[in-house]
């Protein structure tokens, strides 16, 4: 076996005990030296692999993918035997969230005369609509006049949102900066509430 034939067998990719090709190394010190270098290189590659073993994708990739997975899973038809409770749980969460919103908006808040309404609060609501409401997709003007619920979590990109229409006393509008006259405070008003994936209200808009 000459050098060409020896290297054609790709000896650096084989184990020494495999066959008799390594007999050539006894006759050729140059090939023996080169094979040694190849083995050192292989050791270096193993060290590089070990060095890089702890390297992994940033945690934000997992968060994004998990959100995408949950969104995708929500679109699938789920097996009724295993997921029969999902609609019940969803509606229960929505009802609880609406109730919590109604309590939040109406509790211990005096009816404020129209002339005392703070204009800065109205402005704040107008200039800071929830950024992600276009994801609702069921209304062309969605996001135009939604008001973020004070202290509620921000709507995350790709978050699963639900839109629920409810009736609340008109006095509930005062908490969000609307002017309401005393004589109409007890009248019901229709509102649309955006619920986050956790079932909590994120934003609201009044329909009249």
């Amino acid at each position, binding site marked *: 076996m000459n050098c060409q034939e020896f290297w054609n067998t790709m000896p*650096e990719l084989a184990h020494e005990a495999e066959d008799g090709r390594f007999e050539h190394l006894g*006759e050729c010190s*140059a090939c023996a030296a080169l094979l040694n270098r190849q083995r050192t*290189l292989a050791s270096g590659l193993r060290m590089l692999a070990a060095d890089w073993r702890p390297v992994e994708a940033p945690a934000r990739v997992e968060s994004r993918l998990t959100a995408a997975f949950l969104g995708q*899973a929500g679109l*699938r038809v789920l097996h009724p035997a295993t997921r029969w409770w999902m609609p019940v749980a969803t509606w229960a969460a929505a009802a609880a969230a609406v109730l919590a919103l109604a309590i939040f908006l109406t509790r211990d808040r005096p009816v404020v005369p129209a002339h005392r309404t703070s204009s800065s609060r109205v402005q704040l609501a107008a200039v800071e609509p929830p950024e992600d409401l276009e994801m609702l997709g069921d209304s062309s003007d969605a996001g135009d006049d939604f008001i973020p619920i004070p202290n509620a979590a921000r709507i995350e990109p790709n978050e699963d949102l639900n839109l629920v229409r409810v009736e609340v006393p008109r006095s509930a509008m005062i908490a969000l900066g609307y002017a309401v006259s005393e004589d109409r405070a007890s009248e019901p008003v229709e509102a649309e509430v955006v619920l986050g994936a956790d079932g909590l209200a994120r934003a609201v808009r009044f329909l009249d």
Partner: protein
Amino acid sequence: MTPNLPETDDELLLRMRAGDERAFVALYRRRQAAIYRFALHMSGSAAVAEDVTQEVFLALIREECGYDSQRGTLSGYLFGIARKLVLRHVERGRSDVALETDLESSALPEMTVNDDALTDLMRREGIEALRRSVLALPRRYREVVVLCDLEEVDYGEAALVLGCPIGTVRSRLHRARALLLEKLSKRWQHRPGAIALKPIRCLI
């Protein structure tokens, strides 16, 4: 008492397809690092590696993929998607650092390597030089080194990922190792203070 064996990728995939979030997270955590490292070694860009990792698993979520467990492992399948995505990124961004050279046509491994360059491999800067040399390999050699040497994918699975026979994987790896030795040697010779050594030639 039977010990609890970890679920296979295919079992996790089955549960994931049924909407089980924990199965998806488990599968992702098991496979993401290798996919990310593969993309990083191939592109040299953390941003591309992040994008590719995300797109690989998004494809899995959307069931766009035609994974068939009869044809190979899920791991190999994910590497295959990652490879295509990296190529797409590279073509789009022209960020491929490696250039095809006439060195590839020679049949014998180059024998101009000096031992100092290899001794360097045992040091931190030597390992970094090796990483840069891998990144500078032509793409078809780089991918076999990354898969087989750095991610320890066996030749059979690498052949499936690359869509070529096992013999081709072996010959590319053989050529890639020779190119790496040469690149390391050149890098060492171009360092300040390095002495140019006479190439060794095998005459037998």
